[in-house]
């Protein structure tokens, strides 16, 4: 059996719009990946616990509520605590350009704002995960 890329698509925060998350999940599946989707309103703690049990290669975080700085910071911190730094974290949603550099500095590998093609995201995941 060949190795498969496994991605957790996570939706933290209070906004209830997961259309974007679902579209990305489907695109990754169509590219042959196994995608764990856990639904709305996840806390960073829940996201990291899920990533650990599911042993995912990447976490894709969708945030439209404006709380991205807090959420990403917390997720990265918890991943470090659990020694899961090798998991590639990327994100998307309504994220202002000026916030992107600091998110990258936290260790978030890619940020995809509205208008990004699903192909770009699929390629990003493939290029950043070596299996």
């Amino acid at each position: 059996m060949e190795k498969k890329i496994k991605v957790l698509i996570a939706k933290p925060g209070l906004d209830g719009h997961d259309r974007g998350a679902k579209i990305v999940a489907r695109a990754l599946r169509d590219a042959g990946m196994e995608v764990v989707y856990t639904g709305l309103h996840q806390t960073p703690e829940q996201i990291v616990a899920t990533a650990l049990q599911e042993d995912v290669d990447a976490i894709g975080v969708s945030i439209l509520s404006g709380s991205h700085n807090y959420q990403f910071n917390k997720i990265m911190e918890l991943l470090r605590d659990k020694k899961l730094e090798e998991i590639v974290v990327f994100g998307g949603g309504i994220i202002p350009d000026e916030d992107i550099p600091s998110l990258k500095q936290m260790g978030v590998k890619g940020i995809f704002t509205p208008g990004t093609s699903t192909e770009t995201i699929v390629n990003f995941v493939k290029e950043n995960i070596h299996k």
Partner: protein
Amino acid sequence: MNLVEEALKGNYRAIARIITMIENDSPEGIAMMKELHLHTGKAYVIGITGAPGVGKSTLVDKIIEYLRNEKKKVGVVAVDPSSPFSGGAILADRIRMQHHFLDEGVFIRSMATRGSFGGLSRTTKDAVKVLDASGFDFIIIETVGVGQDEVDVVKFSKTTLKAGIMEIGDIFVINKADREDADKTERDINAMLGLNPKKNGWVPIVVKTVATTGEGIKELMKQIDLHRDFLEKNTSFLYEKEIYKSEMEIATILKEKLFERALEKTKAEGGIRGYAEKVASREIDAYTAAEKILDTFKCCSN
């Protein structure tokens, strides 16, 4: 870290890593399964199958809650189908189990079928074993029942809940029992069960639940306990069940290995595909092709 030692101590990271290795068919993973097998046999495995949308995940959620109140450690293996087109999968059973994500006594793993024809793949069974060896008291396998899948989950589990009409379940759950047609469904199932009495002495039971509210869960768990008592009193039947399960496991591994060997042996002729081309062009037939491939095993095999 020594993954096997850590898994035996219940380390979630180690458990998760080993399951991935098994999924990827890595030789290290298989070596670990050989060690872990000796530590299995303590957990009680419950298989849940039924058509999409009947509420299996919600039911699992409520069963976890019940078992956690009893201070039992619970492992869940939730299986979703791989796409036959892309080979990818969306694993979404966790959505219904969210409030157990941070519970230290619950481990949930989603798995894709990865094109295994038997429904419950060897890797699913191995994942259950990893959890068993790691000290979980109960392990729940959740799988969408389509044809062979349903039969497979019965072979592997000790108690099977079936939300549908077939003769394989030990317990039949009518979920969403607050709907008006639930009583009719119950009569239909009971009528079907009357036609298929179980041979080994266990009479299948119908339980009505409303998983979203938790109604009927206590009764369901009581029936699972009764079935467990039944098995424990019928040691010879339980023993036969274990033997049968092990027989299936050996057969699965053997089939895989033989198939791999056949691919290896026929490499020179373009593998199975080389033979397939001849069958497609009506040069030979499929039986002859298979016999020819078997012939390559005959002499001097290493």
